[in-house]
């Protein structure tokens, strides 16, 4: 289910940084909120964008050195192990709104 994708990502973040479990989950949750994402419908594509564009800054602000490299390592781990945790939802609200503007 989608929630386990968040759990999996938070576990990987904890494993690749000096953050404890609570801090890793909290940091990821803040990044998700800043990205306007819903944990329940999280996909690996969305997670990748968060780790590419928002997480380096979040980690640097928490004193994690070499944050971009850490994010790459976490993303690689997610790519290896999170395929089964991908959200099954195929029709998102964004897709509906996109269709409504089609002529």
């Amino acid at each position, binding site marked *: 289910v989608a929630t386990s994708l968040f759990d999996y990502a938070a576990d990987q973040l904890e494993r690749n940084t000096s953050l404890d479990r609570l801090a890793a989950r909290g940091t990821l949750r803040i990044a998700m909120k800043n990205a306007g994402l819903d944990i329940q419908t999280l996909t690996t594509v969305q997670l990748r964008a968060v780790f590419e564009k928002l997480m380096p800054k979040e980690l640097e602000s928490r004193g994690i050195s070499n944050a971009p490299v850490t994010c*790459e390592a976490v993303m690689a781990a997610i790519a290896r192990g999170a395929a089964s945790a991908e959200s099954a939802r195929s029709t998102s609200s964004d897709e509906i*709104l996109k269709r409504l503007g089609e002529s």
Partner: protein
Amino acid sequence: LEENAYLTAVVAGCFYMVAGVRLLRLGLRTRERPELMLSAYFAATGIFYLGINAPSIFRFDALPPQIETAIIWLYLIGVFPYLFFIRRVFRPRAAWASGMVAVCGIFLALGGAHLIVESPLVETLDNPWFIIMWLGYALPAMWMGWEAMLAHRSANKRARIGLCDPAVSNRYLLLGWFGCFQTLAVLVGLYWAYDKDVHQVTSSFADALLGGTEIAGVSTLWLAFFPPTWYRNWIANRAVITPTPMDG
């Protein structure tokens, strides 16, 4: 209503019909329910606006009361797919959203059923049936405005990191504005009822406000469903996408 208000209602009615047909064609092509739900609502709204207001603007005899009641029923029935659309798009997994649909549905059903014994409905604040029916179509308008604005806020954040098309994010905003203008229009309806109660006449201010909200609402729908090229380009050009730190 003054003639200008009738005219804006007829213009809005025509637009709702066109938008309804366009979404129906889209729904038949994609076989997806959201566009069909919205098309049913727009079609019902268009028939309501045209049916109720056209006799005054085109100067033919008022419709028989039974036909008017049937048109109002059609409109009330048309609000149901609108409610389902809002739930499907914005709160597909929330149990409370189903409750909201049920509550609005009860108001609409009670208001519609009461038309059997009282038609036309006396639109005054001391008539509880008017308030019940008013809630039936006011709550969905407010719900749409609220949810679409919230969704726009999230979509805007997603758009900044390349996870949402800026045009889609803007479409949430336009639907939010549409909901807000609809809300303003139904509040004007309440103001009318107050005017009738207290002054025994409706004010030209309310007429002008209603005409303005109808034109504004239709304009936002036009940009949402029939976006011209210049508007698409403007949205695309002002989109800001956060660069990837690793690229630098």
